[in-house]
């Protein structure tokens, strides 16, 4: 068994936290896992990508083209940017709420219609959801990453049990925010079309 997962979004959306929870859950499940993350200047508003391999003999912390069995896209444009890592059988979770970069207003660049992006991915196994809106319902947009994890947990190719993922989540997140985050997780799980 070998599963490649790539997580892409915008700094501030909790991409690192979410992917670390999955890594921890893999450890709890007795699976081998390697994950590469980005650190550096400007923690919010820039592109954030983490790559993960789960499997017995894997060592490479980066995924080659076509090696991502699952893409977790926290933002529509950022998921599209990373799609070359996917293969024709990949699952793609997409949060449909855009975060429009400043280059659109300052440099006149164009943010495409979300419909257009989804249309171009339709031959993949796409699970699209309004993750940020669901997080707001759970108690705050900051829990968007947990909605995404909930949707991820439902994917058949994802090798970790939902309960284990929740256990890892609880051991990572400040108990003060457990209620909101767990609610967001469940909303994401139930919103998945799978």
């Amino acid at each position, binding site marked *: 068994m070998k599963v490649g997962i790539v997580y892409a979004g915008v700094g501030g959306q909790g991409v690192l936290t979410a992917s670390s929870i999955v890594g921890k859950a893999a450890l709890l499940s007795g699976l081998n896992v390697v994950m590469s*993350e980005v650190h550096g*200047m400007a923690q*919010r508003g820039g592109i954030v990508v983490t790559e993960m391999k789960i499997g017995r003999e894997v060592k490479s912390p980066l995924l080659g083209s*076509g090696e991502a069995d699952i893409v977790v896209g926290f933002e529509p444009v950022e998921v599209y*940017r990373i799609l070359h890592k996917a293969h*024709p059988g990949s699952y793609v979770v997409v949060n449909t709420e855009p975060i429009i970069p400043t280059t659109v207003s300052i440099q006149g660049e164009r943010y495409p219609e979300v419909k257009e992006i989804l249309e171009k991915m339709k031959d993949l196994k796409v699970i699209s959801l309004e993750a940020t809106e669901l997080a707001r319902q759970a108690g705050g947009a900051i829990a968007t990453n947990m909605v995404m994890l909930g949707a991820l947990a439902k994917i058949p190719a994802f090798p970790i049990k939902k309960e284990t993922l929740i256990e890892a989540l609880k051991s990572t997140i400040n108990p003060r925010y457990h209620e909101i985050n767990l609610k967001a997780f469940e909303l994401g799980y139930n919103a998945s079309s799978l």
Partner: protein
Amino acid sequence: MKYENILLDESGRREFLLGNEAIVRGAIEAGVDFASTYPGTPSSEIGNVLFYIAKKAGMYFEFSTNEKVALEVSAAAAASGLRSMVFFKHVGLNVAADAFMSTAYVGTNGGFVIISADDPSMHSSQNEQDNRYYALISGMPMVEPSDAQEMKDFLKEAFEISERHKLPVLFRTTTRVNHVRGIVEYGEIKRKNREGYFKKNPSKYVILPSSARRMHRELLEKLKKVEEEVNSSPLNRIEGESSEIGVITSGVAYNYIHDAVKELGLKVKILKLGFTHPFPRKLVKDFIEGVKKVIIVEELEPYLEKETRLVAQINGIDVDIYGKLNGYFPRVYEYNPDVVKEALEKILDIKIERNAYFSAPIELPSRPPVLCPGCPHRATYYAAMMALKQLKIKDAIITTDIGCYTLGIQKPYEMADYLLCMGSSIGTAVGFSKATKQKVIGFVGDSTFFHASIPGLIDAYHNRANVVYVVLDNRTTAMTGHQPHPGLPVNGMGEKSPYVDIEKLVRGIGIDFVKTVDPYNVKETIKVFKEAIQHEGIAVIISQRECALLWDARRRKQGEWWIYQINQDKCTQCSLCSDWLACAAIFKRTDKDGKVRIYINDALCDGCGVCASICPFNAIEKKVIK
């Protein structure tokens, strides 16, 4: 992971650790007594973890003023018999190079490991120099780990090597080892009860020319001894069997070739080197004699490759070597599985099927890293930009420095014209002010100010430079993850400590024009900028406001949160907030009615209120979140 878990005395425990966290675990297991650093990505988290646990671990740890100081501090501790380590990013070793070169001559008493975190692909650096060459230039033994587990295990081994040979050891890591998480199995913790004591011996520790001449010879003799063990070191190992193809590799590159070989079912043997200086010539000779083709897989400079070619030449071994020097692998940027597969296709004349999804091209907007919403630097740059506009100065030269605030280069601020390295903002400002008649404004962060700007500022004062120098004092070393610095009342052990007042320090030099402003007070900041720009001579502005991320975290913890939203009935779309303040949380959108409106992203807004304070129509309103 809770940082305290790194201290658990549970051999066999498994944790999902970042490479940098694994280094700290290695230090704990090795019984390290003493550590110092200046933060620099990709090494920064080592210090963040030590900041939390050093006291509990019974060791000394400090954030030093810069890398040179850090190296000197640890070198002295090692000379006093303590196991010591110093760590920084690759360019930090440039700063420390003077001291570094001498430590090889002087040697060490307690184990001394110098960790360099290189940054191929320059994820957060100004260059991608390969610091393995520092081992050659200094004559230090060098160890290169490949993953989180090896970060821990090899660090312990590096201390053993250092103590066996009384030499400091260069421990060379790269971004994709420092910033990779993997499962790490704990080993036993070596108990330590050492107290440093320095046995005086000037002929051994004072590098006068007369002693240094002897020391250089002694260093080469020590290296010969190291060479005897490097060929049989457990850090260098052979995997697999083949009489056709041999791969020589080190560092993170090993992981890519390992996975490719497994995936493609290739029959190759791999010489995985972890102890790479002095080069294991005998081991490599035996290895390449047994195969027909040798493939060298290493990032950046062709160090292993040149040494291997040397071994082949000296021993008259006729073998085909494939690497960078004959164009099979790139010499720039980090490797990844695709780079390694492409090279294998060329070398082995095979076709590797890629199953990549072809995504039809859509024009996507770029999303460069930007100053965070609420960042006080944005407010400072906005004020500087407005002051220059109001004074109708168009050709001011802006020197900048290393920090988040380098992003002031972006539109609309364009507050960066020249940058070399840490602290260069002031030396280059002096140069521009002497070479031209243009107005010169330099920007430097608070941590960088202490690190390398003070000698430059003295130079500016002494040589009567006409410069506005702005210290962007956000009360932390922000870019590397919020480490304290000498301007803050806390030290590396987490203890209360005396701090340096920047304004007093600047006045102490003799500079008269020194003003401290709060950049969130935009009006006042613009006024002070105009005064400073019109001042003849050196003028220093200290723009002081805590990093927004720290402020946010504190408010989140206390459950206090508010944001700002645009009242669409009042907004005239004048675009001052979206196009000139250009906050990352503010965006323009064409609504369904075809009208363009400006909005604030509620998930990104941090409630700083600077946009509301500059809005000419009072259209931006505070909203408290319960």
